[in-house]
């Protein structure tokens, strides 16, 4: 049901979550449930937002929840966003911690491993 927006794979030790398309009030909850189902057991999580063309506050709330959950469990997480674009803009407007954000998937993965 959420396959058009979210897909999963393994990248090193991290569970890699690919998001794409528009994430808003209409689909954020479903996407959130799909991500949580895949990451509750993960030791590290990478969320790739480079293909996200729109991200609203519902999407921000979703990411905030996932980050908080992993922080509580002491598991590292990184969000990969493009240099420009809607996702970066929204996350910056919401003042997401810069240590969470990365523009490069490989670098983010390497940082997770440290």
């Amino acid at each position, binding site marked *: 049901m959420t396959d058009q927006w979210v897909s999963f794979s393994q990248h090193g030790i991290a569970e890699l979550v690919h998001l794409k398309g528009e994430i808003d009030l209409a689909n954020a909850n479903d996407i959130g449930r799909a991500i949580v189902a895949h990451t509750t057991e993960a030791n590290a999580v990478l969320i790739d937002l480079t293909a996200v063309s729109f991200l609203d*506050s519902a999407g921000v709330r979703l990411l905030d929840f996932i980050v908080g959950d992993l922080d509580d469990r002491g598991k590292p997480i990184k969000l990969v966003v493009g240099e*420009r674009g809607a996702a970066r803009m929204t996350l910056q*407007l919401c003042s997401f911690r810069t240590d969470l954000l990365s523009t490069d998937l490989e670098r983010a993965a390497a940082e997770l491993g440290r």
Partner: protein
Amino acid sequence: MSETGGPDVTNELRLPWDDDPEDLYEHAPCGYLTTLPDGTIVRVNETFLAWTGYTRAALIGHRRFRDLLTAGDKIYHETHYAPLLSMQSEVHEIALEVVGEDGRRLPVLVNSVLERGAGGAPRIIRTMVFNATERRSYERELLAARREAELSEQRVRVLQRIVADLSAAPTEAEVAEAVLRAPEPAFDAASSSIYLMDADRDQLIAVASTDPTTGNWEDMPRSSPRAVAEVARRGDLHVIGTLAEADEHFPDLAESMRRSGRATVVLLPLTAGAGDEQAPHVLGVLAFSFREERLLSDGELRVIRLLGQQAGQALDRARLYDDARRREERAGFLARTTRSLDEEHRLLQRARRLVERVVPEIADWAAVRLQVGPAGLLEDAGGPAPDAELLAGRVADATAKAEPIFAVDGDGLGCTVLPLTARGKVLGTLSLRMAADRRGAEAEKFFLVDLADRSGLALENARLYEQERAIARTLQRSLLAADVPGGDPRFAVETYYQAAAQDLEVGGDWFDAFLISPHKLAVVVGDVVGRGIDAATTMGQLRSAIRALASAEHGPARLLEQLDRFCERVDSARMATVVYGEIDLNSSELAYACAGHLPPLLHEPAGSPQYLLQARSAPIGSRAGDRRRTEHRVRLAAGSRLLLYTDGLVERRGRPIDRGFEILAREYARRRDAPLKGLTAGLADTLVGRDHADDVCLLCLTLGTEERLERSIGADPLQISLLRADLRGWLVGHAVDPDCVNAVLLACSEAVANAIEHGYRDDPFGVVDVSATVSADAVEVRVTDRGSWRGPGADFARGRGLQLIEDSMDEVFFDRGEGTTVTMRRHRGGVS
């Protein structure tokens, strides 16, 4: 003594009738007794003594008359004779039996007279005794004859009733029941049983008994040495009068006679069509038995044989009747099944319907297996399912041999497996488990083979249909899915295709949009005659032809003329309808032509929608229609929306087409402010719904960029992304820079989400109005709802939404009156 001196003959010569009274008394032709009133014999004649053997001395003074009678008659004498005599003084023709001296009984008739003295006192009884030996035996014969006649009459009555029952019995089972009830009332039999011949299996089946504890109840082959089978083979009546006879000829019968305490058994074949020259046709055997040894009279035997013939004929008639009825039922079943299968076009549904028709009407379990696709297809009904391994073996056998394998008693599976064949190829199998009594019969086998033949053909047709349908649909999808140009701020195209419901074949509707040159866009909607793979193929050819023939120079009329010529080579394209338009993206001029197609519907930013009714001509390749192709040009205002569609959208059975046009125009106008994205799907949904018999194809083109964007959307989060698509296109069309576009999209989305989540929290039918204007230095967006809005502090997350609006826009104003209006402004060309 004679005066004349003649001889006195009175002493020597007596006339023969001049009896001596004493001699007459003694030797009279009847006995004569004189008794005292108490019955003591005082005088008796010689005749009586001679008849009874007594001496005179033994009787006179020693015996009373009643002492000479049998015990029964003594009582009769006391109760009838004596009282009657005393009252009437005489009795006549009293039948009594006198016991002689040697004990022999002498039947007599007695007349007595009571003599009375002066004063009426009884003085003496005179009794005359007639010998009635002859008369008594005659009476006995009469009685016996009457009893026999009565019995015979009773038998005849019983038989008449049974014959009436037989003629009224329509089925074999009822005939058997009627025959079974005959022997007990007709012949006083103790019990009876009936066996019927199963000609197909050459077996005798025990069907019923009035006392099932007797006899051996297993079915037997006709060749069995058992007595019943023997009688069935010979076809004539057997009476086994004694156990000894049974021991000698039929040990099996003797054994069951002993067990059930029977002394005589009658085995009666039930025969029909017995011509003299040919052996009678035996349809069954009626067995009845007696506890005592019973000798049957010739009359009884005649009646028994008659019963056998009557019953046989009734059975024969019932069997013919049963056969006819079963044939009729089978024929009816086959006809109904074929019809019912025809109603379904799809393979799976047809297979499903087949098993559902077979169960429970002819089987308690059935399965269709088809070798289609990688996994095959299996549909079953009823239960319980038989042993899977045994069944798989039989299915494999039947498939390999391409021949039916019928269930046989005791095969451990009980299932008949019929190969489903069509055009000499085995498609799969139909497996059935039928009731045991339906197995084996030849007629039943023919019926099943017929059923399998018809089903095979129906399923093969469905498979071919399925295959063709899949190909056609794939072909159509691949053609329709080909990319429609997008991402150009000068125009936007939205398309929608909805296949006919009810599992119909694909239609020949199509749409297309392509750039002829960098500044000329072509849009097409067409409809090919017919359905299925032919229509899909033709549609593909026409679509390609139009793409190939379209040129920046010639225009729509010329293109239609070329399509007419194309038809001469591709005849299936004849009578296709096409609406074709070319839009000059620089001048916003539309040139269009309609070949037999429904008119396009144009909605300009001002005013109501108009049907474009110019430039009409006959369908492609039409021979009877007007094929002078013309075209018409219209200049479109920026923000105009042009709708092309196929007839499925407006044509309804039982509704004039004018009415369809009116409804379309009204719905189209109502959606003037709806986002383009989802517009065509929404129109199709409103106008035709899901359950429709025709394909529907729509193409909506928005031209140019409206100066002012105005949209109204329902209070549904899913609508936000549709709005965003329009807003994004509009912003890009006005060459707004990407950062500003993203910021406006985010702020507008958040504002609309706020309106939906808060303003219309309790109103699912609320509407959010969005308007946007763009100037040289700024974009302004206004989002209005009429809901009961709650303050931002109520919800942390929405608080974040409002924060995002504030952060991404340069100026934000909230106006809360009846509902809320958020007005947001962002400067172009850089973030503040």
